[in-house]
């Protein structure tokens, strides 16, 4: 057979060849390649044959664009036995309520399909009241099959996905656009390595522009009462059928502001990376940065637990390499510590995901097929009763799962006993990566707590809320004290992050609208402010390769522009009214004071510590006598245009949100309102006036 064809006769052996000539190997390789091609083709043919199922629908997805539009589905029985089509119905994947957009389906002309026969259904799209939620409607035509082969459950044997509205796939473009830049990086000619920066700038700039447009289109009044539970720009499709995993992206009030923050901070981080040497390795640097951005944006938009976990882990590896290769002297230690800590947290999260999945009720996937359990984070939050689940290993189910998730997210936030990776990673990472670490990565922890612990396990959240508030206070005070003790400027900023994320926890633990809104605002504003702080420290370090705050003095005299931004960032960070840091902290205090009076009071008192270390560092560096040893490094080297460009948008946003926080509050409020509904709190208790 094949072997015989390829068997060379002894007479064909070219004896004239040298014994070790390369030709021999090439002939062998070619022969093997031929064999491989034959076998691969056979395998593909085999795989194609195995896919045949008994009932088939054409097409598998119907997309409707206008009201009253009708489309036809053709169903063929390809099996060997007659199939009874019963029941036939339209299931709403994203919920469904009277008055909202819906689909209707005609009765089947032939309820029994013999082998080889086919029948057709008409599906009509009727728009509802035409509100903003009609932008995306997902439903599924479900065909039950009886009399099919064994192993088929009665009902929901086949589904046809029905979609209407906006099919722009905006979120997919935002999340995956950075990946498109990676192959482009390798197309940059070797002679011009600096072009890699421009490619990276483009690959992060486009998602930023798309995100800005998305925020503009975002409907601030869509709520959980609607068909889509307040979700917007929904995209869903079945990804891995046998595991019941969907590709499910959407944003709501909890996530939209963080998506914007991510896109902005990453773009500015690329701008800040221009100070790196442009060499061959910068391709790798920017490729990892772009992969990181996809991971981060994915975490904030994925609403299928499996997908969420994939994005969560995808972000780990680039960060490991970015810190480990381009970091400071202790980069290897910091990188491995970061990796191990985060992986430890995320495997606990994986256990939690599996536990929730197996305790969840059945659901309908995006194409109408039935799944016995659900990974849908929205379905898990609405209408699942995990309080009834049997205890796990002797612990109450919801409490154990809550703790698993909490540890997973607390590593990222970081909550104080689990924070030790943070100062190492932040200090050793290059400036741009510190900016991303502090500006975005920490927010993933806070977001995860809101999306998973608070929304899916509200009763356990109420059980633990007090402890969360106190952990927040511990973080605020301990972080501030540690920051005070640091001579290394970058380490001080790192600990200030620990302290500031403590305010988020305090707000989260309050379980009031002001507290939760405050926590999200604090996350966004801390993302902006701490990015400025790291950029400012980076500016000084780039010029002097020194980060000890005691080594400087009088910098304001020689670098006035720098002194302005430095002072601005420090004032914002210590919570000066009129800047965004104050808004978040104020909301957190007002939200937590009525219920957690002692904790809130302690946290407010710790503001004195915050002010102390900020003002101390500011004074030592900017004021006093100028040190002569920095004369060549600093004099005449005030901020360049690029540095101003990377700081200016942040400063403008910090000021704008400080003076006029309403747009951000509007974005966030809808999501928080729905969350409070889940938590059973009183949404009307919006404490205090908004500044």
């Amino acid at each position, binding site marked *: *057979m*094949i*072997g015989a064809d*390829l*068997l*060379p006769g*002894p007479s064909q*052996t070219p004896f004239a060849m040298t*014994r070790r000539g*390369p030709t021999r*190997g*090439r002939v*062998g*390789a070619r*022969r*093997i390649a031929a*064999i*491989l091609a*034959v*076998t691969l083709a*056979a*395998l593909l*043919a*085999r*795989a194609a*044959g*195995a*896919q045949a199922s*008994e009932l088939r629908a054409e097409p598998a997805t119907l997309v409707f664009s206008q009201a009253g539009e009708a489309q036809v589905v053709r169903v063929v029985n390809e099996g060997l036995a007659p199939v009874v089509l019963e029941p036939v119905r339209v299931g709403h994947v994203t919920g469904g309520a009277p008055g909202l957009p819906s689909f209707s389906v005609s009765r089947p002309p032939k309820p029994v399909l013999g082998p080889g026969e086919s029948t057709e259904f008409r599906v009509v799209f009727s728009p509802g009241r035409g509100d903003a939620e009609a932008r995306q409607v997902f439903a599924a035509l479900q065909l039950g099959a009886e009399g099919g*082969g*064994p*192993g088929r459950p009665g009902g929901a044997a086949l589904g046809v996905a029905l979609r209407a509205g906006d099919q722009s796939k905006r979120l997919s473009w935002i999340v995956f656009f950075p990946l498109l830049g990676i192959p482009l990086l390798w197309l940059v000619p070797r002679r011009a390595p600096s072009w890699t920066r421009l490619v990276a700038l483009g690959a992060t700039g486009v998602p930023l522009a798309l995100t800005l447009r998305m925020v503009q289109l975002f409907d601030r009044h869509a709520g959980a009462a609607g068909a889509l539970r307040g979700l917007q720009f929904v995209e869903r499709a079945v990804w*891995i*059928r*046998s*595991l019941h995993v969907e590709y499910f992206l959407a944003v709501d009030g909890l996530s939209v502001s963080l998506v914007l923050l991510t896109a902005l901070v990453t773009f500015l981080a690329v701008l800040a990376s221009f100070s790196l040497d442009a060499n061959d390795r910068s391709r790798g640097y920017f490729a990892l940065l772009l992969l990181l951005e996809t991971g981060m944006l994915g975490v904030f938009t994925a609403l299928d637990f*499996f997908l969420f*976990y*994939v994005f969560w*882990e*995808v972000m780990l*590896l680039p960060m*490991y*390499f970015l810190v*480990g*290769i381009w970091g400071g002297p202790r*980069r*290897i230690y910091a*990188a*491995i510590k970061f990796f*191990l800590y985060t*992986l*430890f947290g995320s*495997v606990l999260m*994986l*256990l939690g995901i*599996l*536990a929730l*999945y*197996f305790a969840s009720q059945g659901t309908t996937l995006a194409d109408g097929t039935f799944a016995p359990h659900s990974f849908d984070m929205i379905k898990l939050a609405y209408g699942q009763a995990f309080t009834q689940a049997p205890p796990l290993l002797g612990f109450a189910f919801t409490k154990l799962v809550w703790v698993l998730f909490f540890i997973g997210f607390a590593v990222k936030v970081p909550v104080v006993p689990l924070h030790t990776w943070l100062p190492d990673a932040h200090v050793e990472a290059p400036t741009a990566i510190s900016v991303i670490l502090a500006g975005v990565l920490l927010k993933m922890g806070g977001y995860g707590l809101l999306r998973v612990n608070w929304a899916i396990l509200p009763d356990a959240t109420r059980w633990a809320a007090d402890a969360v508030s106190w952990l927040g206070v511990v973080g605020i005070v301990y972080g501030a004290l540690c920051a005070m003790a640091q001579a290394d400027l970058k380490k001080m900023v790192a600990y200030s992050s620990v302290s500031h994320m403590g305010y988020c926890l305090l707000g989260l633990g309050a379980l009031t609208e002001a507290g939760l809104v405050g926590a999200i605002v604090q996350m966004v504003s801390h993302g902006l402010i701490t990015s400025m702080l790291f950029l400012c420290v980076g500016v000084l370090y780039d010029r002097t390769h020194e980060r000890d705050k005691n080594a400087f003095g009088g910098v304001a005299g020689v670098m006035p522009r720098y002194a302005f931004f430095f002072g601005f960032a420090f004032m914002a960070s210590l919570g000066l009214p009129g800047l965004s840091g104050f808004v978040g902290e104020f909301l957190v205090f007002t939200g937590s004071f009525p219920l957690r009076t002692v904790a809130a009071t302690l946290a407010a008192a710790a503001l004195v510590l915050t002010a102390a270390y900020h003002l101390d560092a500011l004074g030592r560096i900017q004021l006093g006598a100028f040190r002569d040893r920095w004369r060549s490094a600093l004099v005449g080297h005030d901020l360049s245009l690029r540095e101003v460009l990377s700081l200016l948008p942040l400063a403008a946003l910090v000021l704008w949100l400080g003076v006029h926080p309403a747009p951000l509050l509007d974005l966030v409020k809808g999501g928080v309102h729905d969350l409070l509904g889940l938590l059973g709190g009183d949404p009307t208790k919006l404490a205090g006036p908004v500044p």
Partner: protein
Amino acid sequence: MNGVGASPALELGRLAPEAFLLLGALGAFVAAASRDIRSRRRVAMGVVGGAVAASFAATCFLASSTRVPAVLFSGVIVVDGWVTFVRLLATGGLAVTLLASLGSAEVPQTDDGDDAMAEYLGLLATATASSSLMAAATDILTVVLAIELASLPSYLLVALRRRWPSSQEAALKYVVYGSVATGVALFGFSWLYGAARATALGDLGRAFTTAPLVAAVGAGLVLAGLAFKLAVVPLHMWCPDAYDAAPLPVTMFLSLVPKAGALLLLGRFVSALGSPVVTAVVAGLGALSMTWGNLAALAQTRVRRLLAYSAIAHAGTLLLAFVATGEATATALVAYLAAYVFMNLGAFVAVQSFADLGAETLADYRGLAKRAPGAAAALTVALVSLTGLPPLAGFVGKFTLFSALLGSRDHGLLPAQVPIALVTLAVLNTVVALAYYARVVKALYFEAEGDAEDKRELAPSALRVEEGPMRARAGAAGPRRITRLALLTLLSVGSLVLGVAPSPLLGWAATWFVGSSPLPVTTGVSSHGTEGARSSWAVSPVAHPKDLLRDEPPAR
């Protein structure tokens, strides 16, 4: 196939893939008798290569002609979806091994009178055939035969580097321990036979009702023998030595092909017995193996030994699959093993590239990402996949395995807490695994050549391999480099594709093993009081060959 109509011939036809491989092996051995080194190598390559292709094609043909399990030779052999899977996996593994051997400096292909290429190829083909026979065996007789047929070539393959003392030492250890293990398994089978008075695997479960103590002893002895073949703690000690001393293509072959067969055999055995005690022992072995394997890997300095311990840990994780029951188990085993093909072979092929540069220890690996960026990237992908991080294949394997365990926690033979505890342990093991995989990546990317930061690397390792004459030939020639690079790309991309789009594979597994088969796929032992052991992938060995005709699906 040849002689349609005659029943014994038809039955033999179902074993065509193995027959082709064994014929190829015979051809290679005959070719080895030739005096002309060059022609015998060419003939052996051609014959074995052809046999692999023919075996692959026959597997595909047989699998597409019917999905019904075929019970052959009065029930001593069964050819079902599992056998097909192991055949595909084994021939795929063999193909990769052959391609990797082309450029290997360690496979004896010198012309200083030491050429064993033809024998090498013949042994590989024999071991591949016996691997799928192990998966197909359903009777004590065929089981023992298949184990022996797999073991003997493995011993010889490890001993292949005749001039390397360490190779001889490892092979001797392997032979002595291995023969004892086979003997122990055989001894155990005789106890089981004595209690059950039957040689069919499906009937052995009876022993637990007639003579529980005898059955337990017998089952324990058989498990010990099989655990040795699988290199599961505490019977793993041959494995790091053998993996370290054997030529790398042999190592990658041993870590995959015979293991897959032995794993399926163990699975059939455990599920046929259907005894909670046996299942608990398997679970314990799995837990011990993954934990100890991972912890021991932390201490390794030679990358080959590190991968050997990683293989021990993965074998332990795979054993956990037999604690689960139901359809998800089949899917999990298929997903995990398929992922393992790509990540494990990928790691070994990459390590081969580094071995060509003379790098063996973690200290040698420092900064090599600059000198061999392709191999470093492929090794990173393979190791990340082995860790089980998304979006690579290893994550899908682990995830399906964990969800199979948790999903069947209430229907298994063991209390529901056991699967939960096992999953928790496995998940925590991931973190330990990351710690040592990350050390390899760290050495490759973060450190510069000549860094001497880690003093431990300088300590003498347990087994120093002399830097034989192979080092002189470092660096593969052009076409071989391209073959190597193509292999690495194939395996890395395979790992990624399987991780991002596992749906076809998982869907394939689901239709294959639980699809529209008219035969009830349960064990034949439920009448013996072990109804708990319903498993989708054990077989009914009692069907008569006459039933074969009825098994054929009606013509369309």
